């Protein structure tokens, strides 16, 4: 077990990727705090008892919530080895169609949420990074922080911000033994992705959802989407002691999608 004896907190823990990470961390021997808006989340009918991790109520846009969540960890354990900032939202619009509220909400969750949770976790992570051990903070960037998907302007911008924040935090907190990395997923089969496909009806050229999904899969060198477990595999490695020298990097996990140039049909 790679994370035996470690304490982790995962935000967005009831989302598609967050839930896979929490379950995996528990299997790897970690004590896991599953932080999200509600105990059961909105994407499944599972009861609280069936869901992994110790639930902590956390609206990442609320500083009071961040402080309360970390106070709980401090009281229970006294330190935090691993923080996963997985909470995120996606607005599927161009900037002209995006309202100021939507823009602010995107930044509040994706950027300010990463900031607030990290800010209040750092003292606990510093406490974990003693005697040569490192603590691991993992943000969620995106493939969209590098190259743009159409009609996702605010999302692309927030993920670019997370990438820059990741590097800045790695510089600032590396000397304290805290490693900071970002995972940059491509197309991962989650409720967020399904929402992207069923979305606002703006695209698809009349194609069925199935045809659309197959067309997107076919563009990938691996000819498939990733799964939340694919993400959890890399997150687990980055959280583990094997990754003790890995910091400040943006880890793209996209089935090779961004390695290729536009696939023109010649």
């Amino acid at each position, binding site marked *: 077990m790679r994370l035996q004896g470690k304490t982790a907190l995962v935000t967005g823990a009831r989302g598609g990727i967050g839930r896979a990470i929490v379950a995996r961390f528990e299997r790897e021997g970690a004590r896991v705090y599953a932080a999200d808006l509600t105990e059961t989340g909105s994407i499944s009918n599972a009861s609280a008892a069936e869901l992994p991790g110790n639930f902590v109520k956390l609206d990442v846009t609320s500083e009071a919530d961040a402080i309360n969540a970390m106070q709980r960890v401090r009281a229970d354990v006294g330190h935090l080895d691993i923080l996963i900032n997985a909470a995120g939202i996606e607005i599927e619009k161009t900037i002209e169609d995006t309202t100021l509220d939507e823009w602010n909400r995107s930044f509040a969750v994706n950027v300010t949420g990463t900031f607030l949770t990290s800010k209040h976790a750092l003292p606990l992570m510093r406490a974990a990074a003693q005697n040569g051990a490192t603590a691991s903070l993992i943000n969620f960037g995106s493939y969209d922080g590098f190259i743009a998907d159409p009609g996702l302007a605010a999302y692309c911008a927030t993920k670019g911000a997370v990438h820059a924040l990741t590097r800045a935090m790695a510089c600032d907190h590396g000397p304290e033994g805290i490693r900071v990395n970002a995972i940059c997923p491509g197309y991962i089969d989650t409720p967020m992705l399904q929402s992207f496909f069923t979305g606002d009806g703006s695209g698809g050229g009349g194609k069925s959802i199935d045809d659309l999904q197959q067309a997107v899969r076919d563009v990938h060198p691996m000819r498939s989407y990733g799964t939340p477990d694919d993400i959890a595999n890399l997150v687990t490695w980055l959280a583990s002691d094997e990754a003790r020298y890995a910091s400040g990097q943006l880890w793209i996990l996209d089935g090779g999608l961004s390695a290729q140039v*536009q696939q023109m049909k010649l």
Partner: protein
Amino acid sequence: MTQDIAIITGAAGGIGRAVTDRLLSDGFGVLGCGRSPRPADFPGAAHWVQASVAAPAGAAQIARTAQDLGPVTVLVNNAGVQIEKTVADTTDADWDLLMGANCRGVFNMCRAVLPDMSRYGGSIVNIGSISATVADPSMALYNASKAFVHGLTRSIAVDHGPNVRCNAIAPGWIMTDMAEDGFALADDPAKAMQDALARHPVGRMGMPTDVANMVAWLVSDQAAYVSGASFTVDGGMTAASPLNPGLF
């Protein structure tokens, strides 16, 4: 007054020819070179030498010819070959031909002009490619050779400043004879072109003059503080996700 001389490799057609025309009009003396004899339509004001950059002796001959004309303050390494194969299909002869022109040729030319250029100052522009960072399928050695070009560009900038500036350009799809041949081979050339256009935010394919414009700027005093950089000229193509256009 002695005219500054610009060497342009692979000057016979496409981007090389557009750079030749532009630097002539910007007042440079131009020495074009290529493996073939001087093209019939090559501008009368420009000089030509037939030599291969892949051979050190060829590169030295080009540099000597240029230095006899005047101070060589500009080198544009444009010569390159493209072989459409995967690693598994590539032969040793393919390697020698492609790496000879695209990698060793750039190295040979830089090495040949740097001693003089370091004394009186100058600007080297290497033509790399967007393929250096994102892979075109079945173009393995070409893609890798262009990554070499961008890497060598940074090293020359670091090692040979302050007198020499060295930058690279990463063109996307530029409509040259090579690209037009590709579209002609499509099952439905018109549809292929429509598809290609949809992947370009600026709504058109690149022209050789688009690259020549960037070369002209990079070798001008406007770019006096620019060195070791790579500039993408691709109509926005690589800024977008490589999904089928119009999918969403």
